[in-house]
């Protein structure tokens, strides 16, 4: 079966022309396909790449020209759809937002890039993980505007300052970089995880919303915000630059002082 065969460079036929300015890099990828494999393994690919390439380009090169069985998700290729979160050299990143030039070794040493699936979610195949538990936690915090009473005919009025209050957490693309970098989530999968809390924050601090209490009740649960030990991994991992830990702290404070 092709999928289990040793991967050798060029097994998909002749390689495309190498562009000017390309360097050879080694891409070391954690592979696992439960359909054929008993356990995960590492595969290494030596491929040509430009310093301006995104890591996603390297993965595409491998998939398209070397090993078609390599499996990962991607769509937008510029950091807005949240499909391609993975562990690149040990940290959670979007493959389409990391450029090779920022990973190159100094001097003449050949660069090796290590890529693994994000941690804490079951691996379905290679770099592709089961996102269902992640989205389940998101859905559990009532991630939508809750209002009571009659709707106004025009828009609800919201001051510029009130709109600014929750701006940071509206940027979330649900990529899971944060949640799958959280040591608490790794050990206790029942923890909602930072992404769900970020999305709760987005509504709790929206002046138009009237569901803060319901949501805070949910987050006060044993698997809620109190699990967070403020290690800042999540903030470092967020490709949208969201102050994740700060948002969690604000939710904790809202719970302690019963007001937002």
């Amino acid at each position, binding site marked *: *079966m*092709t*999928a289990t065969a040793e991967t050798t460079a060029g*097994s*998909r*036929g002749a390689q*495309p022309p190498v562009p000017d300015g390309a360097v050879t890099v080694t891409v070391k990828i954690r592979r696992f*396909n*439960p*359909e*054929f494999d008993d356990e995960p393994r590492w595969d290494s690919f030596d491929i040509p790449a430009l310093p301006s390439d995104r890591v996603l380009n390297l993965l595409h090169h491998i*998939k*398209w*020209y070397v*090993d*078609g*069985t390599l*499996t*990962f*998700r*991607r*769509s*937008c*290729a*510029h*950091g*807005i*759809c*949240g*499909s391609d979160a993975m562990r690149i050299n040990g940290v959670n990143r979007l493959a389409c*937002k990391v*450029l090779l030039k920022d990973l190159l070794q100094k001097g003449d040493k050949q660069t090796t890039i290590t890529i693994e699936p994000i941690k804490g979610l079951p691996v*379905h*195949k290679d770099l*592709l993980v089961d*996102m269902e538990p992640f*989205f389940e936690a998101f*859905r559990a915090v*009532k*991630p*939508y*505007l809750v209002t009571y009473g009659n709707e106004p005919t*025009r*828009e*609800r*009025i*919201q*001051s*510029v300052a*009130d*709109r600014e209050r*929750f*701006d940071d957490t*509206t*940027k*979330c*693309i*649900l990529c899971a970089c944060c949640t799958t970098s959280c040591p608490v989530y790794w050990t206790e999968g029942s923890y909602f995880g930072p992404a769900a809390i970020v999305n709760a924050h987005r*509504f709790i601090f*929206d002046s138009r919303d009237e569901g803060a209490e319901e949501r805070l009740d949910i987050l006060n649960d044993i698997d809620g915000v109190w699990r967070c030990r403020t290690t800042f991994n999540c903030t470092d991992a967020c490709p949208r630059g969201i102050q994740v830990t700060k948002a969690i702290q604000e939710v904790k404070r809202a719970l302690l002082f019963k007001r937002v």
Partner: protein
Amino acid sequence: MQFHKYDVIIIGAGGAGMRAAIESGQRARTAVLTKLYPTRSHTGAAQGGMCAALANVEEDNWEWHTFDTIKGGDYLVDQDAAEIMAKEAIDAVLDLEKMGLPFNRTPEGKIDQRRFGGHTRNHGEAAVRRACYAADRTGHMILQTLYQNCVKHGIEFFNEFYVLDICLTETENGPVCTGAVAYELATGEIHVFQAKSVVFATGGFGKVFKTTSNAHTLTGDGMGIVFRKGLPLEDMEFYQFHPTGLAGLGILLTEGARGEGAILRNASGERFMERYAPTIKDLAPRDIVARSMALEVLEGRGAGPNKDYVLLDCTHLGAEVLETKLPDITEFARTYLAVDPVVEPVPVYPTAHYAMGGIPTNIHGEVLRDNDNVVPGLYAAGECACVSVHGANRLGTNSLLDINVFGRRAGIAAAEYANSRESHVDLPENPAASVEAQVALALSEHGQERVADIRTELQATMDANASVYRTEDTLKTALHDVQTLKERYAHISVQDKGKRFNTDLLEAVELGFLLELAEVLVHGALARKESRGGHAREDYPNRDDTNFMRHSMFYKQGDGLSADIRMDYKPVTFTRYKPMERKY
């Protein structure tokens, strides 16, 4: 094979699909089938805004918006549809606000509005502030808000289900849509969904081009499926090139940047749009700006070492405006080109962006089977559909509007139709047969052609021969190339033979759709011997209303990938606006 039965199924979970689902899901038993997780859809990439004549910051009305849409579309717009869209725009924006969308606000706390290309006060007098926005993340906010509301309403999703065929049942009154067939990515299993109504909301097909703002997954599946069923596609030669893609990459920088005051300059620093569109300059519609940029480069006034791009100058806007109103595009330029828009101009060049054409529908989203008749039970909305509100050139912000207005309409119409039917019409015999055969063939050993090679060559020829400027010669070259690639496609090899998450297989299937649509595009571009909106023929530089003031309709003539294409025409609907020369 698995079997499911619903009242309504919606294919696609971008803005159009989820807007439809919110309506349909509250009226009938609805399922959404989507090849991507809903929040991965490319609606999330939209940046600049969504237009509606709210008149929150200056005088405006929907009639001006209608006129701008029609003129922007170079009079190929169906005027009844444009009027509906401009009128319903106001509620479409207010609905989103009520669903929770965090729009930017005016000092009084109302929804703020900004300028956008081609949107004017009083029929062209000056640019008007009509685009409602949330920084340069308007599409992201729309996608998130719609998904949040789907969660609220408990909409049922089948994520990572690739729809590859629909079921048409022949009746004495012609074909009726009775369901769809999907391939489940996780397992490789085929699923048949029987339904009373089916709504296509599968988005665009920008991946026929190399330089594009579109996602890898925008491969025109919905249009391809419908076309293969012998149903028509409309106006496929009209493809929009957005002026400001990051040079060489195609990643979009929103027109909202120019709406906030950014200026296009050539190598010598000249604000060249003053020459091409003296009244509204950099805020002329996209087709005009894209052609002006291409001309500057062709005539040797391009910037950079190869003189092959122009510059978008945002430096005078200041860090404050860039960081607060255009934060994402500022970051894109920094990340992907290592250029900081705060201090230096950004290299830009037109990028393939938006399909004006698509699956022809009426104003209720019902799909046409010819100029006069619909396919009962079949609907389409969003970029995959052609109502036609965009005519030969879409105005910026009118797509986010289109997906909300016509997504909603299609959702309501599909649910009401389903509720008006007592029972499901029987599926055709062996509904899954053709998908099963397609998958089996792709996985069998029948050649050594690589999918990536064919796709790369397709994109190269489309960029070179069928983009901003076209001629008989370039188009014939493109047609020949596409047809040759189709022949090679018959010998592709898929390396992954597994059942689990076989994205290798699906890339091959998607390439089939791309090849199909590329040929239709080129075919239409060859036949349209005039220049109108986004379709610019160097050999026919003028608009020809006598011969070409009509929509193109394309029909596939057989089953094979290389089957012939038959062309027909459909009249444009006029209400109150007579065609005029398009000056800005």
